[in-house]
């Protein structure tokens, strides 16, 4: 027999509920029915809130629904066009992606004869694992909040996130392999090569930050960057640059859209996916972008740090965090209309020379700063 009251008291101990002054009164008005109270406290219980609401599923979902629209609109503006607009005209086409999603859902899913059926179907779903799990380790509270807002607190949060992110290409390779088509094959090999190109500098850049902070727990990192001149991007801009380029490569954004180059290999690993299968891989790319941008915000842009917005209470940090994440995502998106595409060998060469060099400088800088005991 579960003792509901003890669970409630567990969930409502000091600091483990999300407090939002704006809606606190509304919550107070809720009738004192145990079930509803239980549910509300459950949702507002910080680990659950982080996993389900922000920065977890709900935020992700909303972002995924609107970000591609933002991206298409932005591209269009840069290209002297208007972009998607006619669907629900008075909303300016903002629900374009909803239409796309519905179409994908109701479209036929074709599994061609040569595909390895079992893997072909499961890989698009499996990619969600590395794409979703890292979010659990993201802390979105600001440094001055007394209690963190994170689903899983771990002293090794960054390492775990990194490990999960690096798992990602494996699934794409799987998709390409299961598709068993020539373009998919070429695209897959390209993906594998690009993976080699960015991974080392990417990890070194993160390492540099961990050394600088002296910790890899997501909460401690946010606390370290409590004032703006201690943000990672200001202390170690080299690492930030290496990380940013690394994430552009990892998310296959232009100029590194090499594995998916549609004029060359027709979406590479995804060439054979149709209907909801393609919908999933299309979405997963944005999800990966979100995770990497969140990581970037955490490491370099001070996480949830920012002026405290009183009515939002604990959500104040979340707002700043999301804002920064969206800015990073938008920057990644703007790369698309600005740059042409590099060639595979050029991408590889860059990864192993310029960016690696940048990452190493960042590493050395971090070690120096750390060893001279620099505390700003």
């Amino acid at each position, binding site marked *: 027999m579960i003792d509901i009251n003890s669970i409630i008291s567990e969930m409502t101990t000091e600091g483990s509920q999300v407090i939002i002054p704006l809606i606190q009164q509304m919550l107070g008005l809720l009738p004192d029915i145990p079930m509803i109270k239980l549910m509300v406290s459950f949702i507002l219980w910080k680990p659950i809130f982080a996993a389900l609401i922000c920065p977890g599923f709900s935020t992700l979902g909303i972002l995924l629904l609107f970000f591609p629209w933002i991206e*298409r609109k932005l*591209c*269009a503006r*840069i*290209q*002297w*066009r*208007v*972009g*998607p*607009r*006619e*669907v629900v005209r008075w909303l300016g*086409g903002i629900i*374009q992606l*909803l*239409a*796309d*999603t*519905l*179409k*994908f*859902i*109701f*479209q*036929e*899913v*074709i599994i061609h004869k040569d595909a390895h059926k079992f893997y072909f179907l499961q890989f698009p779903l499996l990619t969600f694992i590395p794409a979703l799990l890292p979010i659990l380790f993201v802390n979105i509270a600001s440094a001055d909040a007394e209690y963190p807002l994170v689903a899983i607190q771990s002293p090794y949060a960054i390492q775990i996130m990194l490990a999960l992110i690096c798992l990602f290409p494996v699934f794409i390779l799987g998709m390409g392999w299961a598709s068993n088509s*020539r*373009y998919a094959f*070429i695209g897959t090999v390209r993906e594998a090569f690009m993976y080699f190109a960015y991974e080392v500098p990417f990890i070194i850049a993160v390492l540099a930050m961990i050394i600088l902070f002296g910790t890899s727990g997501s909460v401690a990192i946010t606390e370290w960057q409590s004032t703006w001149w201690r943000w990672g991007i200001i202390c170690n801009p080299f690492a930030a640059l290496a990380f940013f380029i690394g994430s552009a490569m990892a998310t296959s954004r*232009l*100029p590194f*859209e*090499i594995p998916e*180059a*549609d*004029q*060359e290999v*027709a*979406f590479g690993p995804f*060439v*054979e*996916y*149709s*209907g909801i299968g*393609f919908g999933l891989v299309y979405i997963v790319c944005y999800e990966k972008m979100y995770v990497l941008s969140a990581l970037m915000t955490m490491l370099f842009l001070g996480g949830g740090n920012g002026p405290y917005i009183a009515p939002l209470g604990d959500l104040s940090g979340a707002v700043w965090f999301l804002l920064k994440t969206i800015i990073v995502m938008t920057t990644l998106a703007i790369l*698309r*209309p*600005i*740059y*042409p*595409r*590099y*060639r*595979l*060998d*050029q991408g590889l060469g860059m990864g192993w020379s310029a960016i690696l060099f940048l990452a190493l400088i960042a590493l050395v800088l971090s070690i120096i700063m750390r060893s001279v005991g620099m505390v700003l």
Partner: protein
Amino acid sequence: MEEGEKNRNIRILHSGVFTPLRRWGTKWSLWPCHFVTSCCGVELAHAFACGFDGERLGTLNMGIARQANFIIVEGTITRKMAPALRIVWEQMPDPKFVNVIGACGQRGGIFWNSYNIVHPSDVVPVDFFIPGCPITPEGLLRGVRAVQEKIEGRDRTTIEFKHVDLPSVEKEEHRVPTTPKIFAPTPAIRVDVPREVDWDFGKEVVNNLKAQLGGLYNSIAITDKNRIAIKTTPENLMEVARKLSDSMGIDHVKNVNVIDVAHERKFIVEYMVSGYSKELMPVIITIFTEIGRETEAEAEPGFPSLTPLWESANYSEREMHDFFGVSFEGNKGMNEKFLLAPDTPEYPLRKDFKVEEELYVLEEGVPLAPTIKPPEELTMPVSEETLDEAEKNDEMVACIGPHHPGSGHLRWIMRLKGDVIVEVNPDPGYVHRSMEKLAENRLYIQNVPLFERANISDPINMNLGYVRAIENALGVEVPERAKYLRTIMAELSRIGAFFYDAGIFSLFTGHSTGFMYVWAIREMILEAIVRMTGSRCTPSFIIPGGIRRDISDDVLELTRNFTFAIDTRLRKFEDIFVTNPVFIARTKGVGVLTREDAIRCGIVGPFLRASGVEYDIRKAEPYEVYDQLDWEATTGDAGDCLGRFLGRLEEIKQSVGIVRQAVDAVKGMPRGNVISEEILGEYKEVSDDIRGYFFRVYGNLVLPKGEWTSITEASRGTLLYSIISDGESNVPYRVRVVTPCWMNLRGIIEASKGERVADFWTVYGSFGYFPPEADR
């Protein structure tokens, strides 16, 4: 196509509990899989570029079948392309829709009696036809809206039309008009009709030739200024060619042509050759021989190939083999079809293959257009040899195209070793609409719009070349004002074509913004052409003897203003694309063609100039008013992709300069008189506007006997028209057109050898290849 396919997709959409969601989602998310088969594709690109922006409707242009749910068939579907269309359609997930744009896609349009076309509606179920030749972007978007409405359930077939009874009119007896065409029954065909011209250098050359060739030739004649014809025998042909190459420095073939003289049971085979040394540049030497037509024993008469000596003859010889069944011994490609589909009729350009005649009255029971059986075979095999060889050397064979976001409409069969291209074999002909055959069945003047369709990204130059060949034959002098106006239009067209290429190039390097920017500029150029001629892409405005009608000063002023806008926008394009470090890294030093290579493969135009050959016909053999204006031919010597691209950007600037100067000059001239009085004959009063008198003046045009060759500098290079007239018929006996893209094809193959896979698209894009122009 089975019966049940019709409206199946609508049925799918309207079934199940989620119907409203399903309908709404599909309606706003039609992702077209564009099928740029032919010229209408240019207008499709305009519809999705910044001028019209089809993405507003939620249609995201996709090139890939699996992810798209909507095909837009652009124009002609040839016999070779039809299987591809069907395969793509089959690959798409349900529910899927098909729109066909352009007259060609309905009942063939201007190519209705071609031997190589198929009606798309026989291949796939079509939802909507959008008429026009070409369609306008607005029309295309209207078609998208129509599909959306259809998805919503508003079916056009249910519209009730109101019936009105009109008072019946007493029927008059109409005389059935006879066909205006006159075919001479047994025409005398000669390609070396001598002509007295004032050309000292030519006489010198002829004397030289006579001395050198000794007994190898039968006759040598000057047929026109800058044209010499040498008659020889098949046995001596190679020897003659070698002598020309060694002693005179003749280094490339401009044209390989076969003329079927069926009633004399012979073929005339001719090679038009020339050299890139200063004095030889404008000269074309025709070496021709006669061979017997097929005997009982062998269907394909043999003939020595000149490919071993001049590689630039290679593809044209293979083309002639397809058309006439003349086997060029020594050319490796003789055992397979090159341009034609496996199931097109054999040897379609021989005179005994007849195409359908135009009907002048409708008779009951006789269909308007011929019924054409669509091809049944859906496979597109790659030749065994290629596969075997690749297997032996541990290479991978990848086919790019004919339907691929980055293939254009031909198929590239690549042999890859890792990331390096060993060899690319082209498989062209997916847009071959058989212009040369159709031209033999139309009046001279009816061919003007026909040849314009070869390339509607550069229509005026296509038009000008053909008209110049006629004027040359008739010896007509064009009025000064018309010359200037033609130059203005030709240069606008050139700018437009170069911007087209720049847009495609930026797409191929993954830069969609560059594409949009230049398409915005093209929109302005088209606007200027619309104001002048009334049509966006296919004005057919240049006619023998001048232009259709005079152009007013305010339109000219507008054009001049546009040139400044072009300048500004071009700078923006340069900022975002040309100076982009990634772009430079991708193109510099890639796909290099040295001067020798370039000449050997026979590439032409700005691409040849980028390799260091100073050959611009506008300078070498000036036509219109190019010699009266101040401009420079652009040459470079890098020969790489960047060089080819920057060269054309520079030419755009020169062309803008030409337009401005010409506009200034025209404004000072008296209005009117834009058609030569020699050609108008008794209708002199219409010399400023031919409307109403067109057929009276041009209907019965007959060219003097002989071969009339004109070369002009179209945007992508040397454009050669060669009209053979028997002097009696008012239709040409044979028209040979060699388009620059056809010659440049060889260059792409050569330049991409040994480069990396991704560089293929850089090379391809840098060549400004336009498949409809190449395939004709």
